[in-house]
């Protein structure tokens, strides 16, 4: 605090109080904010870093998992198709058309193929004109001509053909495989329908988590198998079929047209094109499930961040509050010291002045006193004075004596207030001491209708202090207390002693039920020459002397008063005299 501010505080005390509170508040806010910023920013950065890093890591893991999964399924499907096509090729290459055209032969081969579990639904031999030469299967298709069928041209051209799912004559989704062979330059076709159930179960029975599904679509976007959710075989997929791409494609897809609210529209889609036929194998899973681990970790990080932030906030607030309390205590202590210092220096300067004045007045007083005695001597040596004159002279001389004594008392007090004396420290029992002073004053107090009530703590330790100076303090205070009852017919004076809270000293309290001190003069009562007593009754030095004595003994004195109810003086006296820091001593 600068000097200017101190002065301001003196001039506008309530204002200064308000300003200081405002300052505390500002400090509190600033400190909490600073603590939060300096600790939360690194925390957030770390949290953020962990989050980004972990998300990337988990995402890669998930994509890898999906890739493995889809690769696995692709291999199974391709193996299945390849196996079947190989069987057909083998049959076509090892047998002649004529041989196979005989239903009994074809039937035997068909049974042999299906012996290890059904994989073909039917099988047929078709000549280059599309006529069915032979057919084994559950349908009656022998009279069908396939010359116009979409696959017929293709198989004739390529030699091998696997169709997409189609309904065909039998109005049921299925797909066929066909291979050509040459008999004497005359091409013919071996065509088989794949057991759709067996094939579809390869794909449709796969379960990935709760929302994962696997399905096939052809290049036209038609489902080749029934997906686990939404849609079924032969329907058009909502999912846009990507351009033909090599390897595995991974993408996120927002299902904007999701019609029911219980599934999240965000999907993770992994797809790969099969070699032959050109079908797209799709593994699809809801984003939230796929990234569940990531979300979980993120939630944990988020909770951790919140808890950390909250605890930092709490700690910051608590620490700041504690610090503020300390600062406030110290400020108050400083204020108190400043006040004391001011009072002390005021006393010191006035003391110096009054000592000088008293000294200067003492000399003329001494002369007046000697002159009176000379006159007195003369009066005695002159026998023939008129009796009235002698009486007058005696009267005047005794009055001069009274007035010089009065002056002497004033200067005496002045000098006692300001004089430097070495205190004689000795152990003393405060209670017995107080009782002595009370006994001394009791008679005078009783005349005024004032009674003493003492409450002296029994377990008071011995005090090391100056008995004669303390006696003066008590006498002054008790005299004042008695005088305070001048306007009241009766009253009481409470005197209590007790060990101070920190056990470093003794608290002595003298409370009267007198007229009280007006608040506007309450802070002046320790000033020298301040008195409310009528002129000639008091010098106004009593309380200043008390103040400076208590100060010199290392104690404190404070006053509280309310008009009409009384005044209370609290005195703190240290158990051991305090060396140093006493009233600045002077010659």
């Amino acid at each position: 605090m600068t000097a200017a501010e101190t002065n301001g505080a003196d001039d506008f005390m309530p204002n200064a109080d308000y300003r200081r509170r405002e300052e505390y508040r500002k400090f509190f806010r600033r400190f909490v904010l600073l603590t939060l910023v300096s600790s939360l920013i690194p925390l957030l950065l770390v949290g953020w870093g962990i989050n980004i890093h972990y998300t990337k890591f988990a995402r890669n893991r998930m994509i890898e998992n999906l890739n493995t999964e889809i690769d696995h399924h692709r291999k199974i499907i391709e193996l299945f198709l390849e196996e079947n096509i190989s069987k057909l090729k083998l049959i076509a290459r090892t047998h002649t058309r004529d041989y196979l055209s005989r239903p009994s032969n074809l039937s035997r081969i068909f049974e042999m193929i299906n012996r290890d579990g059904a994989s073909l639904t039917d099988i047929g031999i078709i000549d280059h004109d599309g006529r069915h030469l032979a057919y084994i299967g559950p349908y009656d298709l022998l009279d069908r001509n396939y010359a116009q069928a979409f696959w017929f041209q293709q198989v004739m051209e390529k030699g091998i053909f696997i169709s997409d799912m189609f309904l065909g004559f039998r109005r049921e989704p299925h797909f066929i495989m066909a291979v050509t062979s040459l008999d004497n330059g005359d091409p013919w076709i071996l065509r088989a329908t794949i057991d759709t159930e067996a094939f579809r179960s390869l794909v449709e029975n796969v379960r990935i988590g709760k929302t994962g599904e696997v399905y096939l679509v052809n290049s036209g976007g038609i489902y080749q198998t029934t997906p686990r959710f939404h849609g079924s075989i032969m329907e058009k997929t909502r999912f846009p079929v990507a351009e033909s791409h090599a390897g595995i494609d991974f993408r996120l897809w927002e299902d904007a047209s999701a019609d029911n609210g219980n599934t999240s529209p965000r999907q993770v889609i992994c797809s790969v094109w099969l070699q032959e036929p050109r079908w797209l194998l799709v593994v699809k899973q809801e984003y939230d499930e796929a990234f569940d681990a990531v979300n979980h970790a993120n939630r944990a990080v988020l909770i951790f961040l919140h808890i950390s932030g909250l605890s930092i906030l709490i700690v910051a607030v608590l620490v700041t509050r504690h610090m503020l309390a300390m600062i406030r205590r110290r400020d108050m202590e400083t204020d108190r010291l400043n006040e004391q210092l001011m009072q002390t220096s005021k006393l010191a300067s006035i003391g110096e002045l009054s000592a000088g004045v008293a000294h200067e007045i003492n000399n003329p007083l001494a002369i007046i006193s000697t002159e009176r005695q000379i006159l007195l001597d003369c009066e005695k040596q002159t026998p023939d004075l008129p009796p009235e004159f002698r009486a007058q002279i005696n009267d005047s001389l005794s009055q001069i004596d009274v007035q010089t004594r009065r002056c002497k008392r004033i200067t005496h007090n002045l000098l006692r207030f300001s004089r430097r004396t070495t205190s004689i420290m000795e152990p003393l029992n405060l209670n017995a001491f107080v009782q002595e002073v009370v006994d001394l004053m009791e008679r005078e107090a009783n005349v005024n209708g004032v009674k003493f009530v003492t409450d002296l703590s029994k377990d008071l330790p011995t005090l090391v202090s100056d008995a004669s100076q303390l006696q003066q303090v008590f006498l002054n205070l008790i005299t004042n207390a008695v005088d305070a009852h001048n306007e009241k017919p009766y009253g009481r004076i409470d005197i209590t002693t007790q060990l101070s809270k920190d056990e470093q000293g003794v608290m002595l309290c003298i409370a009267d039920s007198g007229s009280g001190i007006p608040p506007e003069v309450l802070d002046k009562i320790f000033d020298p020459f301040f008195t409310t007593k009528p002129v000639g009754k008091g010098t106004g030095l009593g309380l200043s002397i008390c103040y400076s004595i208590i100060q010199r003994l290392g104690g404190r004195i404070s006053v509280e008063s309310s008009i009409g109810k009384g005044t209370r003086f609290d005195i703190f006296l240290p158990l051991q005299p305090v060396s140093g820091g006493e009233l600045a001593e002077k010659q």
Partner: protein
Amino acid sequence: MIGAKILLVDDEEIFVRNMAKLLNARGYEVTTALSGDAAIRALSEQLVDVVVLDLKMPGMDGLATLKEMQKLDLFTQVLMLTGHGSIDSALEAMRLGAYDYLTKPCEIDELVLKIEGAWEKKDGAEQKDMMDKIQKVVESPKSVFEVFPRKNIEEKEK
């Protein structure tokens, strides 16, 4: 003791004059000095039984004057006069060998009482010294010239 020789030292001329008058009236022989220097001079010129010395004086103050007097090695007793403000100095003076102190303004009767006390002390000390010297001379008559130098005897006779 009527006839005792008093030296009054104070810078207040009127005070000294009045005091002298009062003490004269009470049968004392009074010399005055207005400063410490003058007091020392007066002491070396004449015999004095009791010095009444003010503490606060311009120039050489009471304490310094007292110290100078001690150097003269006389039996003269010193009474200090002081204001209350300098009681510590008065106590210091007593440590240095002053007989007693009085606070200003003082009653003449009080002062007379203290002067009497001081004179008795001075007289006692002088007699004791004389007894010691006589004892010495009785023990070894040769030392009579050391113990009573000629100047001293002349003064005594006078």
